[in-house]
């Protein structure tokens, strides 16, 4: 797990993603709240940050967040996503060799929060990092998801004079937050 994480981190950072890791959900959520504060969307009005459903976000966690961070919205609509500064979603797998995140993005909320806001925070489980693309393909089944989404770094373009520019149509920042043990300490 350690070496897969290290490889993932190196590869993802090489394509301008930001990678963080926490032992528990509590640590990860604390980090996200800090980020929202820094982005001045923590206190509201609601909708500066938009959090799409995911297994880390169980009832209790959501209730607590609603109390602590009035800026977070949980009703993901296209209008809300278009207006939000930060989108938060959970992904299913990581691919170490390329620094890639893989998610079942069939639920439209998953796509809205990861495409429209300028900052995308992706929550992932450290133990679900796979070595390479070939390994990942074995876990993917298009029969079970109508929209499988691979994300490797923030949106980019080099269409003008081959100059790499981050932040084309998608997020200009991709912040990956790994949790080692999402079941513990919450």
């Amino acid at each position, binding site marked *: 797990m350690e070496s897969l994480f290290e490889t993932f981190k190196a590869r993802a950072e090489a394509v301008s993603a930001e990678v963080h890791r926490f032992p528990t959900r509590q640590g990860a959520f604390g980090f996200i709240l800090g980020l929202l504060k820094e982005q001045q969307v923590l206190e509201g009005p609601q909708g500066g940050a938009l959090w799409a459903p995911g297994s880390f976000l169980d009832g209790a966690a959501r209730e607590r967040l609603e109390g602590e961070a009035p800026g977070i919205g949980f009703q993901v609509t296209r209008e809300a996503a278009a207006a939000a500064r930060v989108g938060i979603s959970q992904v299913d797998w990581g691919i170490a060799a390329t620094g890639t995140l893989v998610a079942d993005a069939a639920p439209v909320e998953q796509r809205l929060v*990861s495409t429209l806001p300028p900052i995308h925070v992706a929550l992932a489980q450290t133990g679900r990092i796979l070595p390479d693309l070939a390994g990942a393909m074995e876990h993917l089944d298009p029969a079970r998801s109508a929209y499988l989404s691979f994300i490797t770094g923030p949106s980019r373009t080099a269409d003008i004079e081959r100059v790499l520019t981050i932040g084309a149509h998608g997020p200009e920042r991709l912040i990956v937050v790994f949790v080692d043990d999402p079941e513990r300490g919450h």
Partner: protein
Amino acid sequence: MQSTFRKSISVALQNPNLAGALGRFSVAYREGRAKAYEGIDFEAVRARIREVKSDAAGRLDELAEIFKRRAEARGAKVFRASDPAQVRQYILDLAKARGVARIVKSKSMASEEIHLNEHLREGGIEVAETDLGEWIIQLAHQTPSHMVMPAIHMTKEEVTEVFNQEVEPGQTPDIPRLVQFARTKLRPKFLEADMGISGANIAVAETGSLVIVTNEGNARLVTTLPRIHVAIVGVEKLVAAFRDIEPILTALPRSATAQLLTSYVSIITGPVPNTDGTPKELHIILMDNRRSDMARDPKFKQALQCIRCASCLNVCPVFRLVGGHVFGKTYTGGIGTILTAWFDALKQSEDIQGLCIQCGNCKVVCPGLIDIPELILELRRRLAVEQGQPALQKAIFAVVNNRRMFHAVLRAAYLGQKPFARDGFIRHLPFFLGQLTEFRSLPAIAPVPFRDLVKRIRQPKGLEKAAFYSGCLIDFSYPELGEAVVRILNQAGIEVVFPEGQTCCGAPARYSGAYEVAAQNAQDNIQALLAEDVAYVVSACPTCTVALKQDFAAVFESLGMTARLEGAARLAAKAVDFSTLVRRLVDEGRLSFKDGADLGRLTYHDSCHLKRTLDACQAPRDLLAQAGYRLEEMTECDMCCGMGGSYSLKLPELSAPILERKLGNIKAAQVPLVAMDCPGCVMQIRGGLDKDGARVRVEHTARLLADRLEPDGP
């Protein structure tokens, strides 16, 4: 060649941005690509891609039906269309029926191929391209010049001008701001559009899935926000199985943009929910447009292995000079020439196929393992069959194929130009011939051709014999090079014979599409070279060696002359290039190097055919090092010198700048000597350096080794 085409080349060459941008990119690409493939077995990956795509190309109809069934089972609507008009009508009808006023598109070369935007606009529908490069060229009313980077031919100043004129004044040529501007202007279009049109990079038959690869994230928006998604997919994108995605996804980003993976890859299988919870309407159009005809053609079927990475453009010495617009159609570069010949018409490739100098760079990097240079030669052959050989070309080949007459004509021409020749060079030629010597001096024609000179060389009667195949340049211009080869082989106890019946290797005819002439050359040479029982047939010209080893058989096969293949195979088994043979003799202990010489520094130029067809670039390096030379590699040592046989006569305006870059790299190596294994390259580079005035000696490896080898043993 049409004068409008020639003019488009001249316009491209005079565009300083084009050469600058593409020249710089080609250098960065080479390094970036190599790095992206670190730890990946490229040969294994491309062998898998070939297997997967070739299998699919062999059963397009079957896979299209399976795809249709599976995708429709998931709720998509699949429409199979044979020609562009059907595709356009389908989309127009759908748009009308659903009350679509606005469309956003992510990149689709298939839609470019059928000029979809124009038709939609004529139908009263607003269409916005959203890929930045595509949006720029849409605003500028141009066509893409590159499959992956459509606007690579434009500077940021030009882009600013286009934005100012077509969108909103007040923009400045600051790239991040221009990108931000595009994001801001296109975002409402995504949100307001009723329909999104995308292409697809892969279509998986067994699951009915589409795979879309992008960096900007526009395809994710196009497939998410509008209530209708239409994907236009060329049937060559079909693969049989879901697992077949993996090798293509491994190669495509690495070969296209030197990335390990693009920012986004989406695998879409059936409709997804819309943002209001209703299911999206998903239409997939599988477009044939002559792809099935291609698949049935035994030669061109392999072109369907293309994954549209454009690496054949990125490594092409001609593309980096002229860019994509001289190709005149949607698809550009090497593969574009082939696709244009099929999707438009063979006749449309008449001029552009001539741009290929046959250096073979593209073949080495193609992740689909397509032999692009060979397919371009096949286009040439078919064009020649369709249109007949020009009378002048016929007359030229008649002379070239008669060795004595050819030498006599050249020598007479040379003597006629004697006032123009000085110390072994022709520097200026009068009248229309002037263009030939504008950028390089031509070698003088030797008074006695090698075929006569060789008779005067006193050779030991060896036990073993080698037949020497001289080719035109050694025979007529560089007989001293032939002498060097004879001396070296004599040292190894080999007697060299010169079969009188040998003639032109047929490369000029083959490269002009005149396969019947090339076949006659092949037959004459096979007869002459196999008449005597020799151990080797050696040539000091890699292009000739390739002819002896491979092309004779290929030409016979093309023309269905199967009875002649056996002779071609016997000759191929004996044929060997000079350096490979000498290294073999050294390894066998039949030749050894004289001791202890420091012969100074040199750099080595890889000739295209030696490096990429014969894969023999290490032998001369080893031999030169053993002889006592210190090798210092130059930048782009294996890039074409621009000679390309008759290419430098047909397109001197391209040959000259390719040579100029080569000369620049040679001079930058700061060595007094440059070695190479091809007399054609010697002619081009020596002539170029002579014109240039640079003091760098140019020699064939044989000449540099001649004094340094001796028989092995005490």
